[in-house]
């Protein structure tokens, strides 16, 4: 009776488990097989966008435009995705593209065009311009030609070839200025054709006002190139070579650097960096801020205590400006090309543009709309809307070769030369040039690499799997002939099978896949069959040619060298304190542990303020302690980042010793009290007791904590990503951050996979070394 109940119970359990698994997979399968469910006579389009500076307003605009579209096109249903800001958007887009199921229609920033078009992910649009479904109010001829050219790309060059996206809005750049401060400094308002001399003189005048600074001047690569254009030079020549010896380039850049470094209060100092340089203008102590585009306007409209306005980029030897623009693109893989085009032409048609323009966030790409009243509106600031439109004639999009790492590298080096000042301009240019030459001559950049033999790899993998399973089965049979044991093992396997299946599918296969990918170049935005086999090329490039790799290893190593020993010592010390029996000790324990459960990003933001050089808590505390010695507290993340960047992160990591501390506390409480008493009677003082009893008795715990924290210290990411982004230069570029840059900013997933495997080897080696080296110091006797 009991036995049959047990058997039925077992059967029921199996049935329930199977049903659960089947249900989980069936949901996915059904979605794949019957894509649009019961509503199969309507076409479904997936649209993805972000909400940038526009915030929720942008969300509402797109939503309303789509609703109107659906109303006008009853046969089409639109699903809207909005992952958040542009960063999350591109991460999501990349994952969807790699999975082979991209959205049909999506935002496409001009700066990403070359990567996406080059990878064949976009649908060319020229043939569709006249197709029947085109929206009635769509007319490409009335668009600003420069914005349209920004989405032409062919053979590594922007501005030529097929059209890959329809620009939805755009901006030129210039300087926002504080009208009140200019008036106070006795400086005239900038004219529409003002010059760099006008600019710098006005900035100097404002800088002389008490507590004020002349200008915030961002050194973003595209902005810097626009500045160079106004002087008739450029950073890249027509062969995409970095210009190092043009005296014009060097002179312009050096002058810019000198404004910041040699003059007080003309430009904001590197020390006073905040998260968003645009938001410094809000404080009302800054004469100019820029070069920024229209995107800061929603933010600046919250200003109530001073008047502000906008002037275009000043003129040097000639007038020039840059265009930043975002288009709607269509995926090359969409099954509904016609419907997707209908939607894109609808979204970029005059009506939708006018509606968006009236909100003032974006500048319409349709000239007629832009010049009309919906955009040009002197009533709301900025009153000089025309100054966004007039420079279009001398504007172009900033062309970057289809290698996103180039812009990243230029950004890092220019930042070091123009902001923190730890490189001279010629040094910075030379470094960019050297890096670019290595990159371009690398065999990895070749377009004629063989495809990755996936079929062959999968075959080998499957054969290996079958052999392994057969071998396992055979050993099972051989060693356990007893039927009762076999039955027991069978139930055991059945019970762990959900985990085993999950592990194999979601851990083992991706791990092996990343190993295979480390032998390829693969962008991560195409499907896997686009991966090209390079053998050990990634590893060779990493070890032999990639200076940033070694730099990131150095930063990580310095961090580990500081964070592990100091952190562990502090955790142990804390645990000793927490082990004291006093009233309310659990309160202290909770307080020390609390930071460990706080979100990493929030903590990083907090600590960016703590380490702020001018009024961060750290330096406010350090200053009185150091000044009697004639020392000054370091400028942690800007000017002194080369020496103090990684240590600052190590100091910050001490905030998180609570986790280790709790483990130490558990270890301490396991040490028998009689040992301390015996030692005391053996005439050992407190220090002796600590070193001769406590330390040996908890040595296994120390080893565990040290290894865990060592592994953790090689995986620092969030803090660096949020606080410094690896900069200035590469002074705080931790290993995993660089890995992330390669994978998600530079679209080098194969290279990043190789980095991940090298990291595994490094951590494995260090762990083995620690285990071996500590063998004589760790006593497990206390655990028995």
């Amino acid at each position, binding site marked *: 009776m009991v036995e049959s109940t047990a058997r039925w119970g077992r059967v029921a359990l199996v049935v329930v488990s199977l049903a659960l698994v089947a249900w989980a997979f069936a949901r996915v399968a059904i979605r794949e097989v019957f894509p649009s469910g019961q509503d199969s006579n309507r076409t479904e389009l997936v649209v993805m966008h972000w909400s940038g500076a526009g915030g929720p307003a942008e969300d509402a605009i797109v939503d309303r435009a789509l609703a109107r579209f659906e109303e006008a096109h009853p046969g089409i249903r639109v699903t809207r995705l909005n992952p958040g800001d542009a960063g999350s958007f591109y991460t999501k887009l990349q994952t969807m593209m790699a999975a082979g199921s991209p959205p049909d229609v999506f935002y496409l920033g001009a700066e990403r065009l070359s990567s996406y078009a080059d990878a064949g992910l976009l649908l060319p649009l020229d043939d569709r311009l006249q197709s029947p479904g085109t929206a009635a109010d769509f007319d490409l001829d009335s668009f600003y030609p420069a914005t349209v050219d920004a989405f032409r790309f062919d053979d590594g060059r922007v501005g030529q070839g097929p059209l890959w996206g329809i620009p939805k809005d755009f901006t030129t750049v210039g300087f926002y200025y504080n009208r009140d401060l200019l008036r106070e400094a006795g400086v005239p308002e900038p004219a529409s054709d003002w010059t760099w001399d006008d600019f710098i003189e006005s900035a100097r005048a404002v800088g002389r006002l008490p507590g004020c600074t002349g200008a915030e001047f961002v050194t973003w690569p595209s902005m810097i190139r626009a500045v160079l254009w106004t002087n008739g030079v450029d950073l890249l020549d027509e062969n995409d070579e970095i210009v190092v010896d043009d005296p014009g380039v060097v002179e312009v850049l050096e002058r810019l650097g000198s404004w910041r470094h040699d003059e007080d209060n003309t430009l904001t100092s590197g020390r006073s960096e905040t998260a968003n340089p645009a938001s410094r203008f809000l404080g009302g102590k800054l004469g100019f801020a820029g070069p920024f585009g229209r995107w800061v306007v929603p933010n600046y409209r919250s200003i109530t205590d001073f008047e502000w306005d906008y002037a275009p980029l000043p003129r040097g030897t000639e007038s020039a400006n840059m265009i930043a623009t975002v288009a709607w693109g269509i995926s090359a893989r969409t099954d509904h090309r016609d419907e997707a085009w209908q939607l894109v032409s609808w979204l970029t048609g005059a009506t939708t543009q006018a509606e968006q323009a009236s909100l003032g966030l974006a500048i319409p790409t349709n000239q007629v709309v832009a010049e009309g009243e919906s955009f040009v509106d002197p009533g709301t600031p900025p009153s000089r809307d025309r100054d966004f439109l007039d420079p279009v004639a001398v504007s172009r999009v900033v062309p970057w070769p289809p290698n996103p790492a180039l812009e990243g590298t230029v950004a890092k080096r220019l930042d070091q030369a123009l902001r923190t000042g730890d490189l001279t301009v010629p040094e910075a240019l030379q470094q960019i040039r050297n890096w670019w030459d290595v990159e371009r001559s690398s065999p990895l950049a070749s377009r004629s690499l063989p495809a990755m033999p996936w079929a062959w790899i999968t075959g080998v993998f499957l054969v290996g799997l079958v052999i392994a399973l057969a071998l396992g089965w055979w050993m099972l049979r051989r060693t356990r002939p007893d039927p009762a044991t076999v039955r027991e093992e069978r139930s055991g396997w059945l019970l762990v099978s959900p985990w085993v299946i999950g592990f194999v599918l979601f851990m083992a296969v991706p791990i092996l896949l990343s190993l295979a990918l480390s032998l390829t170049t693969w962008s991560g935005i195409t499907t896997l069959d686009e991966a090209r086999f390079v053998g050990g090329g990634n590893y060779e490039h990493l070890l032999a040619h990639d200076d940033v790799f070694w730099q990131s290893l150095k930063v990580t190593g310095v961090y580990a060298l500081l964070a592990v020993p100091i952190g562990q010592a502090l955790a142990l010390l804390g645990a000793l304190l927490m082990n004291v029996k006093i009233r309310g000790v659990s309160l202290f324990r909770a307080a020390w542990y609390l930071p460990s459960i706080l979100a990493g990003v929030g903590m990083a933001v907090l600590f960016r303020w703590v380490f702020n050089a001018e009024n961060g808590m750290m330096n406010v505390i350090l200053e009185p302690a150091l000044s009697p010695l004639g020392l000054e507290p370091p400028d942690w993340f800007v000017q002194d980042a080369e020496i103090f960047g990684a240590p600052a992160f190590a100091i910050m990591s001490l905030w998180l010793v609570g986790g280790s501390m709790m483990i130490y506390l558990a270890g301490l409480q396991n040490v028998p009290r009689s040992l301390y*008493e015996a030692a005391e*009677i053996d005439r050992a003082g407190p220090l*002796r007791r600590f070193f001769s009893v406590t330390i040996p008795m908890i040595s296994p715990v120390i080893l565990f904590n040290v290894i865990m924290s060592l592994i953790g210290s090689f995986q620092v990411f969030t803090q660096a990503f949020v606080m410094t982004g690896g900069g200035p230069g590469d002074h705080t570029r931790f290993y995993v951050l660089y890995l992330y840059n390669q994978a998600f900013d530079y679209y080098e997933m194969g290279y990043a996979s190789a980095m991940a495997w090298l990291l595994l080897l490094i951590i494995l080696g260090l762990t083995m070394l620690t285990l071996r080296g500590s063998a004589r110091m760790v006593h497990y006797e206390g655990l028995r």
Partner: protein
Amino acid sequence: MAQVRLESIGKTYPGGVRAVDGVSILIEDGEFIVLVGPSGCGKSTTLRMIAGLEAITDGEIRIGDRRVNDVAARDRDIAMVFQDYALYPHMTVGRNLSFGLLRRRQYSSRLRSLLSGSYRANRRKETGAISDRVARAADVLGLGDLLDRHPRELSGGQRQRVALGRAIVRDPSVFLLDEPLSNLDAKLRGEMRTELRRLHRQLGATMVHVTHDQEEAMTLGDRLVVMKDGIVQQCGPPVELYREPVNRFVASFIGTPEMNFLEGVIEEGGVFTSGSVRIELPKGRWPSVSVGQQVTLGVRPEHLERVADSDAMFTGEAEVVEQLGDRTDVILVNGNHRMTARIASGSGLREGDSASLRADLSQAHLFAVDDGENRIATK
């Protein structure tokens, strides 16, 4: 070697629990004294107060002629053996033994020798002296072959010996032993008892031993201190405690099997009556008892003998018969009364049989029936 003097010492724990109350004992130089009592009686606390591991709430402790109330444990010149031995698990036996000696080197003398240039020579001499002492202690306890082993590689008895060795090697003025034998099996415990006795003789040291095992206490101690609820009940040589327990608690605690107690009343003619049991008490042995007084009669099992029914003081049915070879312990039941008797073996008595007993009343005790349950004086 030293005398230890406890003068009405007391211990009150923060919660208000009074663990030890007014304990006064004079432990003579070279004496082996055993603190004994049921668990929670305060014996361990007393020992730990002597050691300096537990602060003294009131009273005074003197070791030799020094008042040590406020002296740290490490400065009291004592050695202690713990119930769980407290061997340093990460050190070899040799290191365990020498640990206390290494700690004794004084920084000031080291500095002096460093300045006088004789540091190395002194150090060598010192190290030599230490290993000599370790070797001697190991010799005494038969640990010579174990010096390089770790505690985990030793048997319970060997660990016990190392713990003793760690105490011996220091040559302290007082040895404190906190239930050192309770973790050993019965056979080993017997052996170690003998060994402890031998050691005490050999070293002539003052030893204070704590146990809850009265048999261990009887066999080891020169004197016993029986404690209950933090208060000393009686202090004296084992035989004295056995023969003349001051109260019913001590009487019941000392001796196995436990003393039999009959609660009853004195009737006319000096007859002790307890239910159906009537025992005529010897005239004049307890002059102070009066007719009608409630008393408890205590008779040890070994003072009962089996007699013919006609001479019986107590008759009952044998509930349990334990054959111990040289003797037999019998539990007789009669109504509410139970009597344990230790009789000669070979009587042929079986469980369920009826038997009669007679007590040797010259060895029996009367206890008052009151809070103290003190023994009533004999003539």
